[in-house]
Structure formats: structure tokens, C-alpha cells
């Protein structure tokens, strides 16, 4: 009969469709045969009962296929965000001196390594575990919520993978502002503390069901302008403050001196890598293969572009030359700023947010350097702290119902959202400044945060790691 043929093929196809979940051992080819055999054995007559069963299976298969797409997407995104590590490493190395390049590599390598373990053991639980008082999570340590029994348990692995790379990003940001003078062992200690505690707490507040996400108008920080970038930026500020400027950075009268980076192509490569990886950061923050990932990629890209343009024009006007390192900072400024609102604003608004961030970053870098006299070799405080705050507030201005379901001030949403955003920005600032200052002071007065004057002059590569980074190259250094 015709019908049973259909039923058989349906079962066959369903099995095929579903075989994505059968386990990895099985090859695609063999899946087909198994299915055919299964069908041959169960050739019962077609009935509405059978049909219903088949519909269920079809639905199951469709669900599984969507799950597969979700898994692929979140892991692709996680891999991309992991790739931010070399992005930051190359940028930081490029904008500092050659005598510290190996130390920078070690820092970026080890903060991700130690951070991965720390986030596995403690951080993830604090961020996404069962909420306590709206302040922190309290279970799920050691990935205990994950298991291989079913989809939910399996999802935990994928989700953790995505979250750990975010945690490592927050930690690695700090490194840039403290470059060229921080003791390696001190670096390791504060890096662990950040991934294990300081960052996860903020993450819990905003993403993990904590108090900022349960406000009447919950704070919107889609991919983490505040959660990741501001946290990194403000901690960088604490670190640079406690640490003090590099030798020779400020003259006797407090005038700022330029300390040139040693490798512009490396720095640019870093920024290109970051731009590339940021698509995973923002569009991946859907954590599923929804259709909004296209829109998010567009806003992300336009903001980055506008940020570069904004910074280049600003520095061109101010300093008469289009400074490469500032333009690179402009890209990151745009990216950091759009991170909070990438799913909530129009492409046009994304350009505005990015462009303003690009302008802001130039003034901020000069202000922090020349007025505050805080020495931040790569501009991390301005890029991540200041532009992260700006981007978070910008959601309160530019958010549009059409995109993310909630409207900001400029789109008729009134001040409600802006207030929540401001509240988030301020409390996270306070949290980071307090915790950060305590943390860095504690390290300073115990194991030590800064290398000796001689070590700084000779460079951390030799003094901290016993090896030069550019063996054979003649490098002219007068300090």
C-alpha cells in the first residue's frame, strides 16, 4: 500500500535526521543502514496511531536539528572568543617595547590557562549557580550541573565553554594597562582572583539572575559592555593606579613622555583578530542559532567601523596626523561600546554609538595619560572601561522596541531603561574599584606587584623569564 511506503520512508528519514544525536563513534554512512534495517523489522500497517507516532518523531528530529545548529553556533562563537586571547596578546605586545614581549605572551597564555581552571572550579558556579540574595550563585561548581544523560546536561558543557572564554577576556584586559612593570607571580594571583570571583559576581548580577537582571526595568547588557569590558577596564584602572607609571613615562615636571611600541603590524594583527573574534562575542551571545545573529553582526561591524573613523578623524584634527595606534583603539572602542546594545539598536544607531566611542577614546586616552597621569600603555582603561560604560548607557538612549523589544530615551522609552543602565554602570564601577584596589594592594604588600627598577630597565623577558624574545635582532634601547 502507498501509505505504508510513506511511513517507512518517513521512519527512515527520521532516523537519519536524528542520527546527529546517536553519538560520535558512528559514521554517517553506517547510520543509513541501521535505519533501513530498523524500518524493515517494524513494518506494521499504517494507521492514525502510527502516523501520530511518526509526527512525534519528525518533530523530535526537527528539534534535534535545531539543537544541532544551536550547539554549532555557541561553540563556533566560543572558539572565536577564545581567539581573542592572541588578539589581545598581539595588540599589547605591539604597543609596548620589545624587551617585554615574551612576558606579555606568558601573561596572556597563563591568564587563560589558570583562568580556565579557576572558572571551572569556582567562577562558573558563582556566576550561574542558584542565586543567593541576588548577589551571587552558590552551586554548579566543578561543572556539577553538567552530565551526559540528556540535552540539558549536555548543554551545560557547551554553555560553560562559551562562558569561560568571556571570563578569560575580562581578566586579560587588565594585563594591557599593567604591562611592562608587573611581577609575573603577582599577575598570576590577581588574574585568578578576577576569573574566580570579581568577574563572576558582576556576571551573576546581570546575566546570572542577580539583582540587576530583576529590576523592574532590567539592565540590558546583551554581550557584556559592562559585565566583561567595564569590569576589565576598571580593574585595569585600579591596577595601573596601585602600580604607578613605567620608569621614564613622566618627566620631572609631570610632563608625559611617549614610549613607543615596538611592532605596529603585530598590534594591527591583534586588532583585526579581535574584530573577527568579536562577531563570536556579540552574535554568539544569543547562545543559539536564531535569526537575530545577522542583525547583531551588522551592528557590531558598523560600530567598529565607525569607531575607527571617529578615532582617526579626532586624532587627525588634534594631532595633525592619523595616528595608527589610536585608530586601532578606535576599532576596539566601537566594538566595546556596541557590545551592550548590539541586539537592541538599529544599524544607524550602531554607527552613532561606535563613532562617539571613537571620539571618546582619544580624549579619554589623553586625559588619563596627561591629566590623571595614570600610565596605561595600550589604552585599556579608555577602551574597555570608559567605552564600556558609554556603550551601556547608550542602550538607554538608542534602544528600540523593533530590535530588542525595549525602547530607550530617543525612541520613546523614557528614562526607565537609562536609569537601570546607569545604576548598573555605577554599581559595577564601585564594586570593581573597591575589590580591585583591595586586591592589588594586598598583592603589593605580600608577594609584590611590581618588579625592581633594574628589572624593569632590563626588561621582563630576561629578568622574569630568562630569555630574550627577539634573539639576534639588533634592538636599540636606551632604557
Amino acid at each position: 500500500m502507498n501509505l505504508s511506503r510513506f511511513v517507512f520512508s518517513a521512519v527512515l528519514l527520521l532516523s537519519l535526521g536524528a542520527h546527529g544525536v546517536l553519538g560520535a563513534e558512528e559514521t554517517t554512512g553506517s547510520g543509513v543502514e541501521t535505519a533501513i534495517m530498523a524500518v524493515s523489522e517494524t513494518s506494521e500497517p499504517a494507521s492514525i496511531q502510527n502516523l501520530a507516532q511518526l509526527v512525534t518523531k519528525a518533530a523530535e528530529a526537527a528539534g534535534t536539528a535545531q539543537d544541532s545548529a544551536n550547539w554549532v553556533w555557541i561553540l563556533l562563537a566560543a572558539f572565536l572568543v577564545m581567539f581573542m586571547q592572541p588578539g589581545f596578546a598581539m595588540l599589547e605586545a605591539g604597543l609596548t617595547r620589545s624587551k617585554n614581549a615574551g612576558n606579555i605572551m606568558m601573561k596572556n597564555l597563563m591568564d587563560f590557562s589558570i583562568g580556565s581552571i579557576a572558572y571551572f572550579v569556582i567562577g562558573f558556579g558563582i556566576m550561574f549557580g542558584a542565586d543567593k540574595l541576588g548577589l551571587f550563585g552558590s552551586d554548579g561548581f566543578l561543572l556539577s550541573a553538567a552530565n551526559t544523560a540528556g540535552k540539558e546536561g549536555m548543554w551545560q558543557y557547551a554553555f560553560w565553554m562559551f562562558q569561560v572564554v568571556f571570563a578569560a577576556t575580562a581578566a586579560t584586559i587588565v594585563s594591557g594597562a599593567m604591562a611592562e612593570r608587573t611581577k609575573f607571580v603577582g599577575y598570576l594571583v590577581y588574574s585568578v582572583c578576577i576569573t574566580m570571583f570579581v568577574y563572576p559576581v558582576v556576571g551573576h548580577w546581570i546575566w546570572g539572575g542577580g539583582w540587576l537582571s530583576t529590576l523592574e526595568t532590567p539592565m540590558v547588557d546583551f554581550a557584556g559592555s559592562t559585565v566583561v569590558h567595564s569590569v576589565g577596564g576598571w580593574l585595569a584602572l585600579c591596577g595601573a593606579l596601585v602600580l604607578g607609571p613605567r620608569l621614564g613615562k613622566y618627566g620631572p615636571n609631570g610632563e608625559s613622555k611617549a614610549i613607543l611600541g615596538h611592532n605596529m603590524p603585530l598590534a594591527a594583527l591583534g586588532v583585526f583578530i579581535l574584530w573577527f573574534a568579536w562577531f563570536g562575542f556579540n552574535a554568539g551571545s544569543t547562545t543559539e542559532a536564531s535569526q537575530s545573529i545577522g542583525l547583531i553582526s551588522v551592528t557590531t561591524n558598523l560600530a567598529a567601523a565607525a569607531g575607527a573613523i571617529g578615532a582617526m578623524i579626532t586624532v587627525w584634527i588634534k594631532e595633525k596626523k592619523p595616528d595608527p595606534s589610536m585608530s586601532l583603539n578606535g576599532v576596539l572602542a566601537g566594538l566595546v561600546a556596541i557590545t551592550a546594545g548590539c541586539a537592541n539598536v538599529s544599524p544607524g544607531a550602531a554607527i552613532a554609538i561606535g563613532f562617539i566611542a571613537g571620539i571618546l577614546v582619544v580624549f579619554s586616552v589623553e586625559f588619563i595619560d596627561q591629566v590623571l597621569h595614570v600610565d596605561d600603555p595600550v589604552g585599556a582603561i579608555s577602551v574597555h572601561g570608559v567605552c564600556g560604560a558609554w556603550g551601556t548607557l547608550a542602550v538607554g538612549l538608542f534602544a528600540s522596541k523593533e530590535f530588542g523589544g525595549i525602547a530607550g530615551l530617543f525612541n520613546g522609552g523614557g528614562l526607565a531603561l537609562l536609569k537601570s543602565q546607569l545604576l548598573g554602570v555605577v554599581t559595577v564601577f564601585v564594586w570593581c574599584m573597591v575589590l580591585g584596589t583591595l586586591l592589588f594592594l594586598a598583592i603589593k604588600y605580600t608577594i609584590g606587584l611590581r618588579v625592581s627598577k633594574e628589572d624593569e630597565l632590563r626588561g621582563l623577558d630576561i629578568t622574569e623569564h630568562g630569555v630574550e624574545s627577539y634573539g639576534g635582532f639588533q634592538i636599540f634601547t636606551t632604557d
Partner: protein
Amino acid sequence: MKLIIAYIQPQRLTQIKEALAKAGICKMSVTNALGCGQQMGYEENYRGVKLSVNLLKKVRLEIAVTEEYLKKTVDIILEAANTGSIGDGKIFVLELAECYRIRTREKGKVAIG
């Protein structure tokens, strides 16, 4: 005329340059050099293997001066380059037979400064 060659610690270059400039000695040539002397070098360790580095980074100055500037220049360098620790370097003074300024083809003392 004399040609002064000085090996100094790299980090003292700026200081020396400033001190010399104050005394009106603004012309000099600089190269980077490696020095080996009493300052014994140091041991690195690369992939488990000892590596003794005994060529240390120095900066080499070459300054042509007239006799009248000689003492001044040497004194300033002795002063500004001194950190008091081994490895501070040396000053060598050579007889300079002739000197030309390429741009003007001037010769002798006038060409020096």
C-alpha cells in the same frame, strides 16, 4: 683635533646627550654595540639548557672635537655616564688627522662643530 669614542650604559644616553648639549656639544654619532668586560654577563636558561650571555648591550658614542673641547667633553661623559657600578664603560681618545663637512666641503676645525 680628537676623536672621542665612548662606550656607555644604554640607559645613560639621554642624560649624557643633555649634559653635552648644555655645554654646546651637540654633534655626535651613536651606534649600538655589545661589550664584554669585567661585568660578567648573566646566565639565561633556554629550554633547560644553560646559556651564558657575556656580550652586554652598550651604546657607542663617537664625537669629534677640537682640542679645546676635549677635556670638557670627556669630563661631562665621565660625569653623566657614571653609575658607580661595573660595566659603566670606557672613553677612548684618538688623534684626529683631518675632518671634512660634506655639505660645505669645509675642512679642519671649522668642519667639526
